[in-house]
């Protein structure tokens, strides 16, 4: 048997055959790209979905076909209500997120640097973090009324705690050797903070942004349960109340696209700011 490969166990290796090729045993366990698979998957998904409706397998009410969702979306775009809703929601997400993020980063920085702030903050944050913000809506109405402030508060509170955690963990992950280096060259405390700690914590803080952005998106729906006339969340809630499932899915589609857009923007930001990685 001149062609038997060698790296097995039960081979007649003692037979002194002059030479046997080394058997290949590597490969696999790497993920290669499939450029068109994703597109194909979407096309197939949408085609199947559409046809289940066309052939009457599923009622329109239970799962409106993509064509119905698309036309609901087109109608929204045409009469301008889409932009009105989007504008209202983006404003709430924007203001709420910025408020929660600024406050969260301030507290997170304090906890990242100060021992006392850390000791006090960690247990408080871990106690408040797991509270579903939706449960607090009635209190937010009491505290902030039914106007925009309570909506900002809902989103802001939701964003605040994860930002705190992301910020102080990010500061913890700044390599201590860089700080020692700066000290050994006599850099003053404020310079170390500005030139070493802040940029070193940036990757972790940006990763936190990714999480808080998706939290803000989730909470805008909850926030718009409170007397909102416009807003994608309000639109989706109304569609749900009215059992207009095609509009509901159109609204959900907008939310999904909004999420993807925010994710993409953050990716671009990360690539820009963290190109040193």
């Amino acid at each position, binding site marked *: 048997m001149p062609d038997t490969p060698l790296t097995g166990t039960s081979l007649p290796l003692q037979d002194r055959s002059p030479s046997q090729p080394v058997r290949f045993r590597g490969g696999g366990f790497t993920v290669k790209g499939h450029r068109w698979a994703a597109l194909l998957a979407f096309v197939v998904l949408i085609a199947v979905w559409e046809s289940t409706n066309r052939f009457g397998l599923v009622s*329109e009410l239970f799962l409106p076909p993509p064509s119905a969702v698309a036309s609901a979306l087109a109608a929204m775009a045409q009469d301008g209500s889409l932009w009105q809703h989007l504008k209202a929601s983006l404003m709430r997400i924007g203001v709420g997120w910025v408020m929660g993020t600024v406050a969260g980063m301030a507290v997170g920085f304090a906890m990242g640097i100060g021992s006392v702030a850390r000791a006090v903050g960690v247990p408080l944050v871990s106690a408040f973090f797991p509270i579903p913000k939706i449960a607090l809506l009635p209190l937010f109405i009491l505290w902030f*009324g*039914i106007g925009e402030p309570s909506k900002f508060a809902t989103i802001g509170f939701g964003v605040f705690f994860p930002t705190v955690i992301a910020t102080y963990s990010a500061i913890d992950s700044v390599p201590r050797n860089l700080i020692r280096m700066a000290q050994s060259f006599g850099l003053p405390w404020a310079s170390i903070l500005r030139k070493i700690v802040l940029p070193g914590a940036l990757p972790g803080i940006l990763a936190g942004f990714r999480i808080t952005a998706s939290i803000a998106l989730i909470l805008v729906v909850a926030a718009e349960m*409170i*007397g909102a006339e416009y807003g994608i969340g309000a639109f989706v809630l109304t569609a749900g*109340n*009215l*059992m207009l499932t095609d509009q509901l899915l159109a609204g959900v589609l907008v939310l999904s696209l909004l999420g993807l857009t925010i994710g993409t923007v953050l990716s671009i930001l990360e690539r820009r700011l963290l190109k040193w990685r």
Partner: protein
Amino acid sequence: EAQGLEKTSIGVLALASSGPIFIAKSKGYFEKEGLDVDLKMFTSAQQVPVAVASGDVDFGVTGLTAGFYNLASKGAVTMIAAQSRDEPGFQLSAYVATKAAHDAGLTKPADLKGKRIAITTVGSTFHYMVGLLGQKHGFTVKDVTMVAMQDVPKMVAAFKGGQVDAVIAPVTVARQLAAEGSGTILGWVGDETPWQLGALFTSPKTVAQRRPLAEKFVSAYLTGLAEYHAAFNAKDASGAVVKGPGYDELLAIIAEATKQKPEVVAAGLPYVEPKGKLLVDDIVNQVKFWQSEGQVDKALDAKSVMDLTFVK
């Protein structure tokens, strides 16, 4: 115990308006028809037709919302008998103005034009009541600002916080607001704009495939309805509501079913038509209204949401 009985279920809210069902169940009218009816309690009118559409329950009885008509337009539900109505002399829902708005000149329902009014949700019965008021006094819902608060308690919170000028509130809430002095009752919806508040409904599939069941159900329901009407909707010569036969017994049944004190129940017993006939014209008006609001498909034929063959 209920051997040989046909099983069926109905979704209801724990409100006095579901009284005829509670009576029929409690007094065994369903069993007499050979039915073992399971009462499933819901917390919002919105969910009941959805539960019928999803097959969780066979029947439902609640107020009529835009969501109901959307389900009806997709062929998921159809009305087969009337439930309660807003009717002159029966105090179910009130227009309540805040103290500040009242002081500023909001004194009668017609003045609500141009004001901020809290409602539960878009497409709710409160939304239609605002529309009806407008139809009567020559304005549209565009002329008022409706603030959707999801549920009655949050409506009240917005009202007390002075963030709206008025609410349309259920009787108990309205009375309490008035008693506290935080609001003034401007009038009652029943007096101002009578309409068909609620209905008994099922899915067209049940009608088509289990018609005998539906007929037996309606029959028992109508028995309860008639008893309810006799006990609670009787009027004396002057037009005032008086206690009818079996008042106390039936009130106790409803109080037990709704887990409320009898006094509270007694304060908000709505009017029902004893034969279960729907106000067809009002249903048509509702559909037209929702269509004009853009909340129900324009193609829906108002007549198609009712099956009038069960109630003669």
